């Protein structure tokens, strides 16, 4: 049961099922997924590769319609993507034909020129891309591109962010920095974040709660509350305890 009052519910997924049919063969990807996410919560969905967690995220964001069940955000059934909630894609989703400025300003077409410029400057600065405003994505590193995509998402002031393994393609050092920056931004912007990952450490470092998924047909096995305040000490007994708990959940050994 959610650890927050019902009126604080941002998103609820009820009995989500997803069946893909291809060449007459149907694959059961999601089966009876139930999930509630609180306003301003940072939730990680953790599961093995190919278990259907991206499918679940795409369903919650409105890119896919579930075969059964429904997703509600602020009480309304989700039927399509919406600029109030932005999806940060697994592959680099920045537009290569636009500069850093152009990308950050992409979703700001309803604002006046002055407001747009101000918003762009703010978010370029927030993700630390000052001095690169006129650069094209091809001139940026992988980490910078991912930060650019986060800035593009934040610039439209979304109240939710869906992140699909956003740091998966980065090296482990950049990945750590990016997690710290994401937490800093989340604490400043107070959006609701749903973050998909297959990395146990990433989930335990970032999330308020971790939803652990089973293999296909995926469903939520358990929800683990990470009751450690930020900044989190990765060597603390509680951190290791939670981490081990999830290892066990996934049926993994503790030794390599």
């Amino acid at each position, binding site marked *: 049961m959610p650890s927050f009052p019902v009126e604080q519910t941002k998103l609820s997924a009820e009995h989500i099922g997803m069946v893909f049919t291809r060449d007459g063969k149907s694959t059961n990807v999601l089966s009876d997924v139930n999930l509630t996410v609180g306003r301003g919560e940072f939730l990680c969905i953790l599961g093995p590769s190919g278990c259907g967690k991206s499918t679940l995220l795409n369903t919650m964001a409105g890119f896919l319609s579930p075969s059964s069940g429904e997703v509600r955000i602020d009480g309304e059934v989700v039927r399509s*993507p919406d600029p109030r909630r932005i*999806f940060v894609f697994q592959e680099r989703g920045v537009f*290569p*034909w636009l500069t850093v400025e152009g990308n950050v300003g992409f*979703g700001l077409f309803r604002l006046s020129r002055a407001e747009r410029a101000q918003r762009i400057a703010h978010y370029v600065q927030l993700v630390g891309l000052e001095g690169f405003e006129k650069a094209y994505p*091809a001139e940026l590193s992988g980490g910078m591109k991912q930060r650019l995509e986060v800035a593009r998402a934040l610039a439209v002031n979304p109240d939710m962010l869906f992140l699909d393994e956003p740091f998966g393609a980065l090296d482990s050092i950049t990945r750590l920095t990016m997690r710290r920056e994401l937490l800093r931004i989340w604490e400043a912007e107070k959006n609701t974040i749903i973050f998909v990952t297959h990395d146990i450490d990433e989930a335990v470092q970032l999330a308020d709660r971790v939803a652990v998924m089973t293999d296909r047909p995926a469903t939520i096995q358990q929800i683990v509350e990470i009751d450690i305040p930020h900044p989190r000490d990765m060597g603390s007994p509680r951190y290791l305890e939670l981490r081990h708990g999830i290892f066990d959940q996934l049926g993994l050994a503790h030794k390599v």
Partner: protein
Amino acid sequence: MSLLARLRPIAFIAALLVLWQIAVSMSPVHILPGPWGVVGAIVELIQHGLLVKYAVASLFRVSWGFALAALLAIPLGLTIGWFSRAEMALNPLIQILRPISPLAWIPIAILWFGVGDLASLFLIFVGCFFPLLLTTISAVQSVPAVYVNAGRNFGLSPAALVYRVLYPAVIPQLIVGLRITLGIAWLVVVAAEMIAVNSGLGFLIVDARNAGNRYDLVVAGMVIIGLIGLSIDLGMRSLERIKSLRWSYSEE
């Protein structure tokens, strides 16, 4: 590129010209005019004002035939590529029409438009239309879904999605297609002018042969066609260097 590397192709062409001149002067029978003869012929064309006149006539036909084809093929290709059902319906027809050489259309072009500019325009149009259509369709289909999804996520209307995402995403491939197609147009115009009109560089070549076996003029015409084709291609290539279009040519 170093100066030496730049000079290398020029040196190579110069060496070939020298060999050509030697071979022609040693040959007992007249098989080809020598380079000097060709230079003389080009000078003669310039003096009579024919070089500019014919080149302009050919370029005029190429520009119109090419522009008309681009104007029709690109929007049509964007539409067909976007709607997979349209692609399924039209693809067989396109695949049948595509391998027919534009030259096979010559009798029909003359039947429809008579002997004149329109017939040659039509031939160039046919030669450009199908390659451009196919390039555009495949360019649309290869646009990564992530760009389209991102565009939808930010609440773009269908029209805005086309001109802010789809169109910029296909441009680099489209430029390559346009470059290749313009090359085809330049090939077709020569053939079209041999049959359908009495001006232009293609006409110069048949006319020089028919009116007194002036092979120096024939080769002069060929050289001019090659040089103009080269400058057209260089011009199109410079488009690929524009920064906002260059992305797909880099590591992306």
